[in-house]
Every structure is written in C-alpha cells, then in structure tokens.
C-alpha cells in the first residue's frame, strides 16, 4: 500500500522501541469474500489506489516453515477473473513484521555510488568516482596511502579480493541463502529477527531515493534538522538500489585493534580471521565495525528450547544439513563472513598436493557461485591474470566508506543507470 493510501485508511507501520516493526491490518472484501486481518506494509513506489497482495502465502500443508505464514490471496480470486473491485477496512489487529532494515534511505551518504549513462560515457572517472583524500605534510593522500601503521606484506602470497558489481546485482538474495547454507549460519526465527538479531553473514541492503537531497536542501534553504528528518522519508515514486554487504575484510580493521584477547586477527592474504575458540564475547569488535557485519551468538541456538521449532540443527536429521567443513559456533562468540576460508584452504591444499600454481576461478566463495548475474567475483589480485585483478582496475571500482580508512579487500562497482 502506498504511504498516501495508508494515511487515508488510517493504517500505520511503526518502528518499536526495540527496533522491530509493527503495523495495522486490514480486511479486504472482493465480491462478498472477505480476507481478514491482512498485514499492511507501506511500500514506496506502490501506485496510489492499488494494493499489492502476493499469492502463495497462507498455506496450511507446507510443513513447519511454510504453514500459516501470511494470508491466502487466492481466496479472493474467482476463477478466470483477473481484476475486481475491492473494499478495504482497517482493523484493530496489529501485526508484527520481521524486518531487518528500519531505515529506507541513504541519508545523502556515499554508500551506493550511482551515476547516469551520459556521465559514465564522459569518461571523466576522476570526477564521478572521486576517491576521498586526507591532507598531510606529503600533500593529499588516499586512504590506501595514509597509514599510521606498518603495512603487512600483501605482495608475496595471495591477496584475496572480491568485486561486487552494483550494476548487475538484482537484489535476489541467492547469495544470502548460499552463504547461510555454506557457513552453517544459525536460523533464529521471526521473533529474534524482529529484535534485529538476524545472523546473516551477508545481507542485502536496500535503499530508496528520497525527495529531499543535500542539493534540494541547499536550494530551498532547508535547515539541517528538517533536512535530515525529510531525508529519512522515501519518495512516492523512488528509484531503488541494492547492495550486498558482508565483512569487508579491512586491511586496517577497526575490529582487530579493539579485541582484548586478539580473537580477530589479520592474515597475510588480506583476510580478517575470526578465532571462535579465542573469542570471549565482549562484542567491542561488532560495535566498532563501520559496516555492522559482525554477528553475536546471543543464545545457544543448537540447544536452546526457544529455537527448537525454527532451527533445523536441533535434531539428528536436521543436523545433516550442516556443512562439516565449517565450525558450528557456540553461544557467546562473534561470527562473520570468512570469505569461505574453508574453500580457500581446500583449494590451496589441492594445488599443493598436485604441485602446481593455483589458477583463477579454481574455487570461489558460496555467494559468488550462487550469483545468477555474475555480480560477485572472487579471486587473487596478486595474480595479474585473474578476473578480480582486472576488475580492481575498473574505473567504476570503489570501496565502501573508504574515508574511514579501513582499506577493505572487498570493493564495489559503481551503478550506472541509463537515464538523464
């Protein structure tokens, strides 16, 4: 339902004090058939006067995961009728949504870089993909040159990097599923997701455009408080961007310095390692992560009764789904994307056994493997023939939050849209 319709019908979706989302429900009547207590999600871009209702929900025979989720929209459709007039009445019943993202917009920040086609064709990459610089006595330095620390040796061995093309990403979520399966990411259920405790190592951020931008604010003379308040509101008819975000494997990682016991350390191959059995769970690393990709094991998901219904790994049969190459994490430790370290190690060992060099594309991460549009490319940038080392030289390449100085091993490709 669009925001304007929601106002008209008196329904709301509101963020709760604990970070979850609650909304009103409506009764929809078509041709005398009423579908009761349909949860309303306010969707930017939904045409005013229309309601989008997905079919395929409200099942009763789908097993423990699918049963009684949502409402059955098919009941409103008489055979061979593709459209009908509907009446909508708001009800008193509240619905709790499981939403992993509360904020809808980028707040005018450089997160998903996006340009239009003419700008791209102008070829002036220095301008449309400007790298943040730091003033120093040596003159302006990029974040990769401005170092307080001695760098690790990133030349002799492998240097694993990943390129994510925001142009190709459709936001389908296959990578998230593949990652969760490969890495035994705990399934925590709706209640925990509502508390913002999803355990995904890889997530897809979604941002809508807003009518308020920095430029508009400057033009119209809008004050800072009002500007930011309006920036939070997505447009009626927004453009949407997706961005897969996982651990960025920073080479100057904020998480590594703050751990009191050194449970998260850096490898010579550009990876940020997490030693689960050294972690004591202060969660300082998660706080200090600018990308908020670290996940804490709030409960013992493999044993706790609260998760029996949702977590398959609680019975012998369900445990067969776990990947034996990946540790199942205990309660009280932090976990995060490892860039599928088990695959990297296996690949290196196989090559070593055969007495040969690793070749590009011999193995890849679960997310890259699952990506249908080839948006995710993983490889060794120290191998000049690898695809990822070419992609790193692309003029669209940029690092997320480069100005923080984290020097990530993951980089993104600017989105180019064909419009004025």
């Amino acid at each position: 339902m669009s925001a304007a319709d929601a106002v008209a019908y008196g329904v709301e979706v509101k963020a709760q004090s604990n970070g979850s989302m609650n909304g009103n429900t409506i009764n929809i009547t078509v041709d005398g058939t009423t579908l009761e207590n349909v949860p309303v999600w306010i969707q930017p871009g939904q045409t005013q006067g229309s309601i989008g209702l997905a079919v395929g929900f409200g099942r009763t025979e789908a097993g423990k995961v699918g049963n009684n989720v949502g409402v059955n929209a098919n009941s409103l459709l008489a055979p061979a009728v593709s459209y009908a007039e509907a009446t909508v009445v708001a009800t008193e019943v509240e619905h709790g949504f499981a939403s992993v993202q509360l904020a809808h917009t980028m707040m005018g920040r450089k997160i998903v870089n996006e340009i239009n086609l003419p700008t791209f064709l102008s070829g002036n990459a220095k301008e449309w993909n400007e790298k943040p610089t730091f003033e120093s006595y040596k003159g302006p330095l990029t974040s990769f040159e401005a170092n307080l620390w001695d760098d690790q040796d990133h030349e002799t061995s492998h240097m694993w990097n990943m390129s994510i093309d925001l142009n190709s990403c459709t936001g389908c979520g296959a990578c998230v599923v593949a990652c969760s399966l490969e890495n035994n990411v705990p399934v925590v259920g709706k209640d925990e997701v509502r508390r913002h405790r999803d355990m995904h190592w890889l997530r897809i951020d979604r941002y809508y455009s807003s009518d308020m931008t920095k430029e508009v604010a400057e033009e119209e003379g809008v004050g800072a408080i009002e500007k930011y308040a309006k920036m939070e509101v997505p447009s009626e008819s927004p453009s949407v961007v997706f961005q897969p975000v996982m651990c960025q494997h920073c080479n100057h990682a904020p998480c590594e310095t703050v751990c009191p016991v050194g449970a998260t350390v850096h490898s010579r191959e550009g990876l940020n390692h997490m030693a689960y059995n050294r972690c004591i769970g202060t969660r300082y690393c998660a706080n200090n992560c600018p990308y908020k990709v670290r996940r804490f094991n709030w409960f013992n998901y493999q044993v706790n009764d609260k998760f029996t219904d949702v977590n398959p790994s609680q019975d012998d049969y369900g445990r067969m789904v776990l990947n034996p190459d990946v540790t199942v994490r205990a309660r009280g430790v932090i976990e995060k994307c490892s860039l599928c370290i088990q695959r990297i190690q296996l690949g290196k060992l196989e090559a070593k056994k055969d007495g040969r060099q690793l070749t590009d594309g011999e193995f890849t991460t679960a997310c890259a493997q699952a990506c249908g549009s080839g948006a995710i490319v993983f490889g060794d940038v120290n191998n000049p023939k690898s695809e990822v080392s070419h992609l790193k030289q692309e003029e669209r390449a940029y690092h997320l939050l480069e100005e923080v100085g984290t020097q990530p091993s993951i980089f993104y490709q600017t989105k180019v849209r064909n419009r004025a």
Partner: protein
Amino acid sequence: MHYESPVRNPLILGDKSYSDITNDIAKPVESKAPRSWWIAFSIAFVMFLWGVGCILYTIGTGIGVWGLNKTIDWAWDITNFVWWVGIGHAGTLISAVLLLFRQKWRMAINRSAEAMTIFSVIQAGLFPLIHMGRIWMAYWVMPIPNQYGTLWVNFNSPLLWDVFAISTYLTVSTVFWYVGLIPDFAMIRDRAINPIQKHIYKLLSFGWGGKAKHWQRFEEVSLVLAGLATPLVLSVHTIVSMDFATSVIPGWHTTIFPPYFVAGAIFSGFAMVQTLLLIVRKIFKMEDYINIEHIEMMNIVIMVTGSIVGVAYITELFIAWYSGVEYEQYAFLNRATGPYWWAYWAMMSCNVFSPQFMWSKKLRTNLVFTFIISIVVNIGMWFERFVIIVTSLHRDYLPSSWSMFSPTFVDIGIFVGTIGFFFVLFLLYARTFPVIAQAELKTILKSSGENFKKHHDEHGAH
C-alpha cells in the same frame, strides 16, 4: 601547633573534646542497629538477590536475554559500568588529591567517600565480566603465560587497558582506605567489651599500638599512597573514555573524551558522596562533624565540574559542525533531535542546568535542595553514558543497520541489583566501620574546632 585564621569557618562544631569525638564515632559500631537500618538493609538485600538471579539467568541462557541487537552491542551493561566507575571517582580525589593539597575539610568525609569508591568500583567491575559472552573465559584478558604457545592478550585494545586500570584502582584504593582504618580499628578494639568483637578488631587493626613510630610510619605510608593514587584519579576514567575515543564510531571518536570523562566522573562521584553523607550524618547524628561547611564545599565542586561537563557537551557539538564530517555532524544532530532526544535533554538538564543553582549561597547551603540535586546529577550522569553509548551506536555509518534499543527485565534487574549490592555493602560498612576518620579528625580539633577557635579569638593564639 597549626594556626587557622578566624575568618575560616570551623570544621568541627560544638564544644568537643577528643573523647567526645571517640564516643560519637564509635557509637554506631557499638550500639544496636536501629529499625531504620534493618528496613534499609532488607530492601537493599532483596534488590541484591534479584540482581544475582538476573545475572545467573544471563550466564545460564546467554546475553540474548538482554535487549541488545546486531547494531547495538553495548547498552545498559556498559552504561552501568561507566556510571559506577564514575561514581567511584570522588573517593580517591577526596582522600588523595585533597590530602596532597592539605585540604583539612576532607577529613570528615574521606572515609565514607573512599568506602563508596570501593563499593562502586566493585559494582563497575561486575559489568565487564557479565557482559562477556563467555564469562568462563574471562581470565583470558589477563596476560597469563599459557600452554597455547604464543597466544597473548592484545595490548592495542582499550578493553585490556581497562582491565589494568580498574584492577589497579581497586587495589590502591582498598589499600589506602585500609591503612587509614588501622588506628580507628584499634580505637574500637580498645573499647570493645564483647570478646569476639574485640578479637576481630584486634586482627583488623594489625597490632596497632599508637606509638610515635607507628604514627610516623602511618603518616609516611599515607603520603606515599596518596602520591600513587593521585595519577589514578586521572588515569582510570581517561582509560575508560578511550574505550570510546579510540573507536571509529561517530560520537565515540572524540579526542575531548579523557578530560571530559574525568570531570564527569568527579561530578557524579561528589554527587553520590553528597547523597550518602546527607543520610549518614542525619541517622548517626554526626551533623557536628559533617556540617554545612563540608556540604557547601562539595556543592562547589559539583558546580564547577558540572560546568566543565557542560562546556564539553557544547564543544562536542561545535567540533562536530566544525569538522565538516557528515557522519559526525549527523551523530550529534541525531542525539539532540533524533529518536533518543529525550535522553539527550534529560542529560543536559540534569548535568548542565541543575548544578548552576549552586551559584546561590542560599541554595548550596540548603540540605534538602542539595539532596535533590545530588540525585538529579546522578540520574543525569547515567543518561550521559546512555546517550554516548546507545545513541552513537544506533545510527552509525550505514543506515541499513540503524536500529533501536529497549531494555528487558534482565537489563533492569541487573542494574537494580547492583544498586542493592552497593547499599548492602555500604550499610554493613556503616555498622561495623568507623564512618569518619576519627584519628585524623582529632589532629584538626584544636585548630579547626569551634570551641578552640573561639578560645583562640578570645585569648589569642599561644
């Protein structure tokens, strides 16, 4: 004999002799506990037990029983930690720094202030332990040689600095406090009639004999410990502030934090001393020793440190704007106007506006008003830490991860439990320890006692 100018107000009121001081201060220890003590102790003990229950539930089930989430990984736990450490600051300041500056007015309050310090540092120390996901591995933060080969603690981590700072502070404060207690324990020992009580105080007083040599050593060790403790007043909260200042999170990454945290800690510490002593002096009838002069002095400290904190708040806002960093600017704008605006303005009004009343002499010598302000200040200082921790974390760099925090009954239970634990300790202390450093106080009786001052004025100093 030290001479004190008649323009200075007396520090000990009434016509007191040495023996009066002994009697007055030993009285709470020697008499039976009043009914009000039992009521207060029972309430505190129930709160303490409730806290113990919540802590055991957390350790048994997981940190998930708190209200934290993937974005806000610290909230009430570290808020309470910093709050209690801050409260624990006044004790050392009063006993060590004021000793070095020869501020005699500290003598009536240093014992209780130091006791408060130790008890609140104990509460503070609980939180870094129980906030760990795996508390049973807590000893890994100690640089202990181990069988894991080269595995060692990470000296880059401010949390490790915390371990050293807090444990040093607790040790030095406890030793300092105990050394001061020795002659007073001996005083109670000498007066005790009950043989068991006599024996206990005999052990506690380390065979104190009151010889000149004992006094000389006592003075020396007090001075040395004061010298050791003084840098700790500055270092502990400086290091606590570095938990935030060395991070990259907008709103935490602030170079002003060390001095600002130290000022805030002294501010809240003095407020807590004020709260406790206003009760103690009333119940134990010690108004002659802890009098308006002392309360006014402490109110002035509260006013000055409160204003320093206020300047720090405003500096933060200015620097956020001046830095030109959009994340920084948004973080501070969001504090004041975002979803947690109420916490920010609670902090501002309690910490910056309320101490300004103390400019008025009438108000800062008013006991009821002082008591109210002392509680308001501590509420404000709790909000300060909440604002710094939660509002900085809940909206940081990537809006996709923005979230909200709401405490569960366990969060609240543990906090209430530490308040209970604190009062359990303080109430036990008040019944068994001499709450005023009587041996020290006697050294100023003849220079700052009301009757002696009057005598000097009338007959001239001899």
